[in-house]
Structures are given as structure tokens and as C-alpha cells.
């Protein structure tokens, strides 16, 4: 690890200013940043510590929705009664993520900006080719061990999964991030890799996430997050689904449905085709299974990850059927 300097910001503005220096990086919980610094992926010259900023850790839930400060801890949000009641999928996506120790340390802002777990990305001394780390150098993963790589949203340049769970739930319920006064829908926060996988979000230089907002909805209140993986806990998703459903007054017909997928795509993946095909219908097992397969439209296998194309629609279907009382 190289030497770096440490700067404790007294205000968001001060932090933003400090971030304009090349080599400056924001430090929140540090669970991604320090990890990547040890791997030699992140080489900060200055760490700008924002964990002492006041007012960025609040969690508030009312009839309109939730607002959560960027410094709220994953564990706090997962356990927050208001979040659990109005946004079960959001709370579950957090409690099923990482480990208790990490959840007690990691922040919501940092969580949204966690980096991929692509093994090739994480070992720069061994795999110099990685377009995400080093634009134009190539992609070591393609042709290698791709069990945990994406099948959706990939490009010739990069097939790395966006591994976070929270963002999947947020994408399903039209949440947004706030950078001071600028507000961006979570779905638009993340960029597809295309030819520039090093460019992961639309955040501008020096911009700091101050919080997130999740509008209240019936679908969000009646929601679940289903995460499937080999190990029961402390593993990223092989495939996951955030699903919320609002039924018509008859209690059967779907008025609104939200479906998003994790563990399979280069960004948190909203499956609008699945939603569209089920809106206005009465759920039944066959129709749900058929609709769920639409989530894999455009999916591309890279060998070891082909099972995801089979698995993910089953996860989506189970989550929908669970919320529809059919599983």
C-alpha cells in the first residue's frame, strides 16, 4: 500500500473541493476502498473522510417515501422499522448483503458505488489487461473463468457484474440519488460498460452523494428481495430479484408490478418486459414463468456463466409467485 494523506472534511462543500485534486478519493465505511487499495486497484493520494459530516446519516420514512442519508449504515437501514414496513425488498436486500461486520461499517452511499468483484479486475499485478482499470488494455475475463460474470448489458470491452444488492431493490422502486441539489434516478446513475467500462456512473468529478430517496408505492410495500447463491450467507448473488406488486381492488389482477435483477448484469437491471407482460393479468404459474423468461432478452453467455440465463428467470418467477401468493 502506498502512502497517502488523510483529510477529514468539515463540510460537504469542503469535501467536494478536496475531491477536485487528482488522486483524491472519498472515504466512507472504507470496506470497498481499503480492500481495493490493498489489491492495488485503488491508489489514492488523499483520502477525504466524510464520515464525520453531520446530518448525512439520517433515515426518515413518511407517507411519501423514505429519505436516507448517504452515511447511514447498511445495518441501520436494514433494521429500520419504517424501511422494513414500507420497503421490505430494500431492507432485505441489505440484510442479505455482505456480513454483519461489513453492514455495521459500510454506508449507503459507499454501497451504491461499490466496485465489481471480477477477479481479474482485482489482481492488477497479474492481469494487466482490464479495460475497467486501464482503458484500452483489453479484458482478461473474456475467455477465462466467467462463472460470476454478467450475461446482460455486457460489451466487447467488459462483462463485469455490478454486484450490489441494494441498488437492485432501489431500481425496482424508482429511487433516486441526491448529490446536494442534483437528483438522478438510480437507473440513470449507472452506465453500461460499452467501450468505456472505466466510466461507471454519471457522477461528476467532486460530486458527493448526500442521500437517496425512495418514493412510497403500494408495490414497494408489497415487495420482496430474493437472493440465490451457493453459500447461505456472505456471498454475492448468483442471481437475485427485487419484486413488488400492486393488485387491483379484486385482489388478483396486477395493477403495478416492479421487477429488477441482480447478479446477472453490468448494472442493476430493471426487467420492464416482464412487468409489461404481467400488468393487467391475473397471475398464474405458467404465465409468470413465461413472462420471467423475458428478463433474459438479449442475454449472452460467456461459458461459465451460462447457468445464469437459466437460473435468473426462475428466481424472478419465484419472487413474483411468492408475492402473488402462488409459491
Amino acid at each position: 500500500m502506498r502512502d497517502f494523506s488523510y483529510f477529514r472534511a468539515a463540510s460537504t462543500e469542503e469535501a467536494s473541493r478536496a475531491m477536485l485534486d487528482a488522486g483524491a478519493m472519498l472515504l466512507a465505511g472504507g470496506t470497498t476502498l481499503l480492500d481495493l487499495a490493498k489489491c492495488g486497484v485503488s491508489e489514492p493520494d488523499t483520502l477525504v473522510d466524510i464520515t464525520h459530516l453531520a446530518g448525512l446519516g439520517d433515515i426518515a420514512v413518511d407517507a411519501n417515501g423514505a429519505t436516507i442519508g448517504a452515511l447511514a449504515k447498511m445495518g441501520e437501514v436494514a433494521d429500520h422499522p419504517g424501511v422494513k414496513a414500507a420497503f421490505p425488498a430494500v431492507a432485505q436486500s441489505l440484510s442479505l448483503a455482505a456480513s454483519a461486520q461489513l453492514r455495521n461499517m459500510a454506508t449507503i452511499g459507499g454501497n451504491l458505488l461499490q466496485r465489481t468483484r471480477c477477479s481479474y479486475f482485482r489482481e492488477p499485478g497479474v492481469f494487466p489487461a482490464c479495460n475497467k482499470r486501464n482503458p484500452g488494455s483489453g479484458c482478461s475475463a473474456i475467455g477465462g473463468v466467467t462463472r460470476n460474470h454478467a450475461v446482460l448489458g455486457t460489451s466487447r470491452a467488459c462483462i463485469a457484474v455490478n454486484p450490489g444488492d441494494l441498488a437492485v431493490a432501489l431500481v425496482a422502486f424508482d429511487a433516486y440519488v441526491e448529490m446536494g441539489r442534483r437528483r438522478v434516478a438510480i437507473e440513470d446513475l449507472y452506465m453500461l460498460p460499452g467501450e468505456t467500462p472505466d466510466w461507471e456512473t454519471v457522477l461528476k468529478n467532486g460530486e458527493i452523494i448526500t442521500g437517496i430517496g425512495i418514493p412510497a408505492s403500494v408495490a414497494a410495500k408489497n415487495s420482496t428481495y430474493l437472493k440465490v447463491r451457493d453459500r447461505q450467507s456472505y456471498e454475492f448473488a448468483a442471481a437475485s430479484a427485487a419484486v413488488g406488486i400492486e393488485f387491483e381492488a379484486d385482489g388478483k389482477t396486477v395493477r403495478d408490478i416492479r421487477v429488477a435483477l441482480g447478479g446477472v448484469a453490468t448494472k442493476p437491471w430493471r426487467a420492464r418486459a416482464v412487468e409489461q407482460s404481467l400488468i393487467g393479468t391475473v397471475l398464474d404459474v405458467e404465465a409468470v414463468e413465461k413472462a420471467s423468461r423475458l428478463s433474459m432478452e438479449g442475454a449472452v453467455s460467456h461459458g461459465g456463466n451460462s447457468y445464469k440465463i437459466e437460473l435468473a428467470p426462475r428466481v424472478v418467477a419465484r419472487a413474483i409467485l411468492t408475492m402473488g401468493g402462488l409459491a
Partner: protein
Amino acid sequence: MTIMETRKHGDAADGMVGGRFSRLDGKLKTTGGATYALEQPVKNLVHAVLVQSTIAAGRVVAVDAAKAKAAPGVLSVFTPEDDLGLLVASDWFGNRPDNQPFHPLPREVSFNGQAIAAVVAETLEQATEAAKLVKVSYEETQSVTGLDDPDAGEGRLVDMLSVGWGDAEAAYAAADIKIEAEYRTPREYHVPIEPHGLTVKWEGDFLTVWEPSQWTHGMARTYAEWFDIPYENVRIVSPFIGGGFGSKAMGYTYSAVAAAAARKLGRPVKLAVTRPQTFTAYGGRAATRQTIRIGATKDGVLQAIVHRGASETSVFADFPEQTGAATPLLYAVPNLSTQHRLVPVNTVTPGALRAPGKNPSAFGLESAIEELSYAIGMDPLELRLRNYADHDYQSGKPWSTRQLREALTVGAEVFGWSRRSHEPRSMRDGRQLVGWGIGCGTFPVLKAASEALIRILGDGSVEVVSGAIDMGQGTYTILAQTAAEVLGVPAEQVDVKLGDSSLPGATVAGGSMLAGAITGAVHKAATAARDELIGLALNDSNSPFRDTGANTLVIADGRISVPRGEGPSLTLAELMSAIGRDRIETQRNTLPEGANGPEDHKRSWTTMANVQGPTAGDLSMHSWCAHFVEVKVDEDFGTVRVSRVVSAFDCGRIYNPKLAESQWRGGIIMGIGQALLEEGLIDERFGRVINNNMGDYLVPTNADIPHIQVISVGIPDNDASVLGGKGVGEVGIVGVAPAIANAVFHATGKRVRDLPITLEKLI
């Protein structure tokens, strides 16, 4: 020699042998009071960081260390250019080529991740950063990356491992029912919670090494030979070990690098192998494949087993992961043939990982037996009992003790096996398919001599001193219990000193042989100390017992008295004071008379040349177990959860049920990892393990572990060891993976023959 009464399992919480006495080192470890090798406070310390190769095969053409050397704090960079002046050391059996130079940082690269340079700097951070600046250029050659590489070939037959009797091929051909299948296990790793590394310090020609060690004496010999100094000049210190599982029983190349660097620089050196580096700094379990053919009659009587196995090894050394190790032992079969091949590939030389050989071997055989049970339509428990081996067919010798039938029947009873329906996919719980499976295991009794020193001190306390080690299995505790029982003092009054090669000699903590060996030595030394104390008490002119006319005395509950209680009764301290002694010291070993000279000692404590196998005498001696496992498999996702385990063990007499049960559970948990999660993922383009960290190499978490019920069905086996125990540590994992694979088949109707059973194999 007195053999203590065997206590019934688990009926005593006291410190006597057989009692559920809690680990003496437990509190130190849980409170951070135990100092590990990399925490030794050594003054003037510098830090070494390894640079590992990034190609699988070829030559180091040049190492450009200029930038690294110029980096802040850097003292030296060692590369293949440097002759460190070392000699090749003996193998485990004490064989050693004469004066052959040893280059721990070689020019020839034989695997990806091989240490080829080391940077030494004032701080760990400086050394780490400078290590990144070392630029290595290679001349790459074609590599063979694993068993499946087309260039790997079928390997070289290891004649020593061929076992056979009868005419297996003919009997198989003639059998009514035949099954044939290939089973595979991947590279698996020890991943102990304490990573590897060492702190070394020279004082003139004397070397002290703080290094986690499963064998202080064996490793001291290695260092002495590397540096061509007398054995007595080396001291390996290893009081605590954060898990070894077979990986901490020898000095590795990085150990040599650290010690050589310390000598060259004239300063103590600490070298901490990083977690990713541990995946190639020493070997895990070799990948294996084996084909098993079983022939049987229609009513399930085995006629023939034909077994052909192979394991990978490195291109420069042989380590056979013997796939036929359990095959000849578990069942009665009139015709058998097993063979094992070694396939050299570009990997670090594999090593011993919990139950080497037996473990993959049992995966094959115990899967195949259940495949046969479905081919015949017979309950797999019944099939196993029908073919119960009443003696060892391989050696022709009777078993010393074999309570495997009891393990199977008691295990089945407790598990509720009779409620099973035989058809695959016939049991479910909502969307979860439920399956039950059995896997049997075995591990040989290995015997070795050891030595121990007992001190009775003036204050009546007792010291047990040995160079044996405790890596969590409980040596401290059972030795306190052993001495306490012989000397009639509470175990709390016994202080055990271990883990230092300058202390009395002990065999390796491996192959489940240490407990049997070292309790024997402690028992002998303690008995001698007791006899000496009683002798003094009866004869010393100042002893109050002198005139009692007694011809012996009893020691119990910390007091020494005349039998039947008429006469004086003193605490040990009072007696010691009366006879004016501040200590009684006895050192004993368990080597036979006539082979007990200094050379015999060195050979016994520092090599495995004198270790006796399970059939060295007139009997065949092994530990046995039967695992009963329930799994739930999600019918859509293919995720497997182990929901219940009942395992019954025959490990002879149990010295401390609490510790033995914990070892068994640990083995079972590792077996669950092996069955469902663990696999080194090799990128075949580079021959490199890419999941070389604990985020990606998955071992079970608490959430993956159900209630595990373990049962002891053993009886004392006094042929196996002085106190009647057989090995406990290794056998627990053997048979777990096949039990799970069998349960998965029962649940789903899908037979997974290559571990681990990850979800994509079931969807």
C-alpha cells in the same frame, strides 16, 4: 503399566482422562492473550514481502529491481540472481541428497504463483509497495495446467500404491450387476484462519524461528540442514497455531527466504504470506479423478471392485493424493484391484489436507456404493451391512477394533433412517426436495514414539513439558488431564508447556497420531514421577510416611496418603517441603529399549522414518465413522442446504469428549464445504488460481451449518495406543462429501460426481 478405567463418554466434567474438560488455551485465545508467530515482539525487525510468478512455466530472464531498491525503506531485493547459500534438506523420511544447493527463489518457473523474488524493507507497507515495482521478464514455455489438459496424459503409475487380490477384472466381467463411474475432486485449500508466515532471528550461528508449526522438531531439522548448522542451533517456537489442517508441518520456500534474508541483513525478519499468496506458497489438496467399477450379485453381495485413480502433482516433486486409500478397507470383497497414477502439471506441489487420500477415496467409493444400491434396488444401509468386512482383506489381518457396524446401526437409529423411502425425488418439503444419504469413513492408526518431561514442583504443582504442538485440537488440555490422572492432582494444577523444538521430542501433529503418541509419553513420564515421589515418601528420613510401615502410597485429589486412610495425609506441597525437595523431574520416551540412543531420538522426533502404519503388527488398526445426512435442494435453483447430520464414530477411547466432538464437528463442517463450496478455480490460459482469497474461495459460514449430532461408539483399543484411543482429527471429514452427494441424488435423482455440488450442476 496401569491403564485407567475407561469412563463412560461424557459423564465427567472433571479434569481426569475421559472428562469433558474445557480447553486450557481457550480463554487466552478468545481474549487475545495467545501470541502467534507473526505477533512476536522482536526488536529491530524488518519485513519481507514475496514476489510470485505470473506465468505457469518458463524461465526468469531478468529481474529489474532498480525501482524497488530505490523505493523508500527498502533494504534489499532477493532474486534468482542471488545464491542464498542453502542446501537441500531431507524429505519427511530423512532422505537427503548430498550437498545439493537449494534455490528457494528459482530461475525456472514451474507454476503460476511461485515465489521468485522477495523485497525486504523497514516496514511492511514499504516492502509491499516496493514488491509491486519489481519487474520480471520471462521466457514462457508451454504449460500443463491440470488433469484435463490434453497434454497432461494419463500419468505415471505409482507401483507402491497398487493393491489387489483375487481376479478383479474377471469377477467384474462375470458379475450380474455392474456399475461404473468416474468421480472427481478439485483443488482444495486449507485456508486456516491464521495465514502462514514467520519471524526469524539469528544470534551468531543460532537461529530462532517463530512459525506456526505442526512439528517443531521436524521443521528445526529442515532449517538446520538448509543452513548447514547443527540441529541444536535451531529453535522453532510455536505455542499457538491458528489452524493448520496439514499445511504447517514443514518449512516452505518462503521460510527459507526469510531466514536467509535475516542472515544476510543481520536483522530479524518477518515474512507474512498474504492470503492470496497462500494459495500457491504451499500446496492444497491435489485435484483427483477416479473410475470405479463394482460388480455384485443381484442380492447385493460384492464380487469385485476395480479402481483406477489419478491425482495431479507438480512437475518437480511427487505428492500422491491416494484415491485408492479407503477402497480396500471398507467392504468385504473377494476380488479387488486399485491403481493410482500421478499426473505432473504446472502447480505448486500439493500437500496434505485433512485426511489425505482417504478423503477423495471415500468420495469415490461411498458414492459408487450408493449407485450400486440404486442399481440393485436395495437400501444403501442394508447394502453396507451386507458387505461388512469382518477382517482386513488387504492385509489379511484381524481388526484391532472396528465398531463400524455399531456406527452404522446407532447412526441410523438416531437419524431415523428407517423412515426413508428409497425412490429418488420421493421426499419433499414445499419447493425443497429432501434427500438422505450415508457416507462411511476411515483413517489409519499411525504410531510414533514421543518424549515428555514431568516436573513436580515444591508447591505441589505439576509441569508437563514437550515440544509437541497444539493447533486447536487440544494437546494442552489432554496432556494436563493425563498427568492429572496419574499424579492425582486437579488438572488446573498442571501447567503444560508445548510448541518449542528445544523441548523434549515429539512426532508430527498429523495423520491423527500425536494424541496417541504424546499421551503415551506423558503417561510414562508421569508414572515414573509418581513412583519416584512415592519412593521418596516411603524412604526419606524426613518423610512422615517413613515409619508408617506402608509399602505403597496413594495420590488422589492432590493429597498423598496411606492406602485405606490410616496414617498421615499430606498435600504434595507439604510432602515436597518435608523431604526438602523443590522439584522432582522425570523425562521418558516411548522408544523401545535398545533403540533409544541419540541417533534414534533424532530420527524419531525429526523424521517420519519410524512411524508405524496400521498393519505393522499382527492387527489392522483404524478409526471408523458413518455419517447420515439430510439435504434440502431447491427444485428450481439447485441450491443445496444440509439440514441435518448425525455421525457416529469409532475412535477408540475418547480422552476428552468435548474436544473430540468439536474435532468431529470441525471435520464435518469442512466436509460440507468440500461437498458444496470449495474449489480452486483455475484459469487454464494462465494456470492460475483466480479465487485466491476468502471472498471468492468459499468455506461454510454459520448459516450453512445445521445441527450436527456426533456420537461415539468406540471402545478402548489398547493395541492402538497406551491409553486406548485411536485417531480423532482426520476421520471426521472422511465420508461427509459422499454422504451429501448421495443425499443430493436421493433428493433430486441427479448424481453429481464432481465436487463441489454447486447450483449450476443441479438446475
